[in-house]
């Protein structure tokens, strides 16, 4: 008997033609079928409204920027994971898992990949492997992504119909939508009083596929850890309190 070795084959070098033409396990056909019926992944309604009716479109890359970039990326993926998608977190080794859970993202379908110190090339190989099986990939490139690698990732993203969420500077990755945060202010805490309760922040969507560049004022995180449409402040912003 010979030993099957399909899963242990050498990592696909990026120089060779993309394996998308003949992927293993017939995922490609399933992916295509899925794409036909569900063009989008579920997303929080507040962010959905910001992005237009389509929400989180499969095959797209979304960059989350600004001081609340991480909270934004978590909020954008929470609904999809809650409804059965798996999420890989690649190269974001210091992600606070409690914040992820509080945001309503079930941890049982979250996998963290720590790429080690092998640079952008190794990271890109892991990106491709993750996109093969995960519908959501949350990542942060470890350096400038050369154009051929960015193209390979883009092609895999399209063919697998997943969603790529980039925290911070995309560093050469092709981005379809940008969600940026600005003007953060924390509430509930003063000099020696209270505690951090929630953060108000303005979120703006822009990009090729976003028709109207909308702005939303949100609590991110809100007092329960989730994204909420902005409410009346529970206390004065700290700027006025000091």
């Amino acid at each position, binding site marked *: 008997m010979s030993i099957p070795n399909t*899963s*242990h084959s050498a990592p696909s070098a990026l120089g060779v033609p993309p394996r998308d033409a003949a992927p293993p396990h017939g995922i490609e056909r399933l992916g295509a079928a899925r794409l036909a019926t569900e063009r989008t992944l579920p997303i929080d309604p507040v962010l959905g409204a910001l992005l237009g009716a389509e929400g989180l479109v499969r095959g797209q890359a979304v960059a989350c920027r600004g*001081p609340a970039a991480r909270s934004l990326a978590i909020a954008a993926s929470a609904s999809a994971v809650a409804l059965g998608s798996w999420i890989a977190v690649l190269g974001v080794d210091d992600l606070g898992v409690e914040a992820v859970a509080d945001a309503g993202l079930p941890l049982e379908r979250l996998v*963290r990949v720590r*790429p080690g110190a092998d640079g952008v090339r190794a990271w890109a190989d892991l990106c491709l492997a993750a996109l*093969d*099986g995960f519908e959501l990939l949350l990542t942060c490139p470890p350096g400038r992504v050369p154009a051929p690698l960015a193209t390979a990732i883009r092609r895999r993203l399209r063919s697998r119909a997943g969603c790529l969420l980039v925290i911070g500077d995309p560093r050469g990755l092709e981005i379809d939508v940008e969600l940026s945060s600005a003007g953060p202010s924390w509430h509930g805490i003063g000099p020696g009083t209270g505690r951090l309760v929630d953060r108000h922040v303005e979120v703006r969507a822009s990009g090729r596929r976003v028709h109207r560049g909308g702005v939303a004022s949100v609590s991110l995180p*809100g007092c329960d850890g989730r994204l909420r449409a902005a409410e009346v402040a529970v206390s004065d912003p700290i700027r006025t309190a000091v």
Partner: protein
Amino acid sequence: MTVGVRTITIRWSDWPVSALGHPPERPTAVIVANRLIAVSPGAAEFGISVGERRRSALRACPDLLIVDRDPALELAAFEPVLEVLSEYVPGVELVEPGHIRLPARGPSRLFGGERALLDRLAVDLAELRPAGWSPPGVGVADGRALSALATLVSIAAGRPEVVPSEGSPELVSGLPVAWLAEIGEVPVDFVSLLDRLGIRRLGELASLAPSDVVSRFGPVGLHAHRLANGIDERPVNTVVHESTSAVELAVDDPIHDASAVVFAVRERAERLISEVAASGRVCVAVRVAIETEHSERSEHCWYREEGLSAAAVIDRVRWQVDAWTRRPGAVTSGVVLVRLAAEQVRPDEGSQEGLWGGRSERDEAALRAVTRLTSLVEGGAVEVPVWSGGRSPVDRHRWVPADTVDLLDAARVSRDAAPWPGALPAPAPTVVHRDPLEVRLLDISGEPVLVTGRGEMSSPPHELVDRTGSRRIVAWAGPWPLHERWWSPAVRRSARLQVVLDDDSAHLVAVQRRQWSIEATYG
């Protein structure tokens, strides 16, 4: 094995360190997921204890040698011990390298009583380790769980603990409830639930009415309650059964590569475990036998109280093959036969779920991707969170390698509905710095801010100084005192503070041994 039989548990708590082969006086520690799991006597002299983080241990002793855990190496070093023990009794169960269990009755008859047996064992075992390492904890009691508890008592006391058959309630009543989780008898979240209810000692659990315990906590509670009463006996319908389920992998072409053996066994292990699971049972002991073309043979019985998933079985095969091939001259040809036998099974009480069934197409795709990612990362890791019930936003979950847990078992991440008393309230920080960034916290006159033993600050913090410069603190809350591992004699005190800086960023800063550091950031 019937229930409640006299059982000996032997546990070298520092085995992962001593297996490395360094002298005991050298400060050495073994870590898993950034936490120390074993320390050498040399490291203990610096006040370094199990459970500590890498960073804080290095602060106490900058020369500390820190090594990642390697179960195969530990097992290779443990083989001589297993050989000595096999002369006493054939049925040695291996919990992990450095932690074994054997029936007491047969050998104690042979050697003239339990005391005489333990004395002889102590002499034989002492010869196997260089002087300077602490002797193993040895516990003898009725049944597995009580003997495991007796062993923990023995490690703390530094001498063998023999619990007479009639004396079990006295042994357990004063012990912390957390020890039940430590020996794998109950899940960690069960302990944290009891802690929230104010039940910290097994005696307190024992004094509750059994009917209340069952209605509130189900079978897990009942089992814990019986143990707390010193009864190591599962109810009649849930006794551990001998099992005859077994699978075999026989190959015509000998396999010469250890990882290929493990890979080839994978499917067999999954079949064995799902066969056991199909009858609503959990496999708690698996016998792994490996044979080469030249009829060399390695055989161990692996025991795990929580039950063995397919991934756990595969891990044990990997350790066994690796350890075997590392022994010089032990293996001279390729592997031709691997046999896995589920030796003992017990009914599934819900502690282990999701082993089979209920997989969606997305789950399958993700599991394949995890396998592939695991084969791709070098110097990195593929990990998933598991609930560990800590108090701070930093350690309520811990990350474990994805191939060591059942990925489809949602219970591994389940959280208690309510947070711990003293826990920091939501929101939780989105950035948890793996190595906390050391900073200075100064008051308005530029003096360092300190936190007293009673959790009060010397003066209000005014600015935070790090390598890049100084930022003003515009708001702050706390301090929240934190006493980690309250059951351990080496309690480490620290306190946490939430701060908002003048650039509108918010951070969680902690002080320990007078050193402030940014532990997490609300990004």
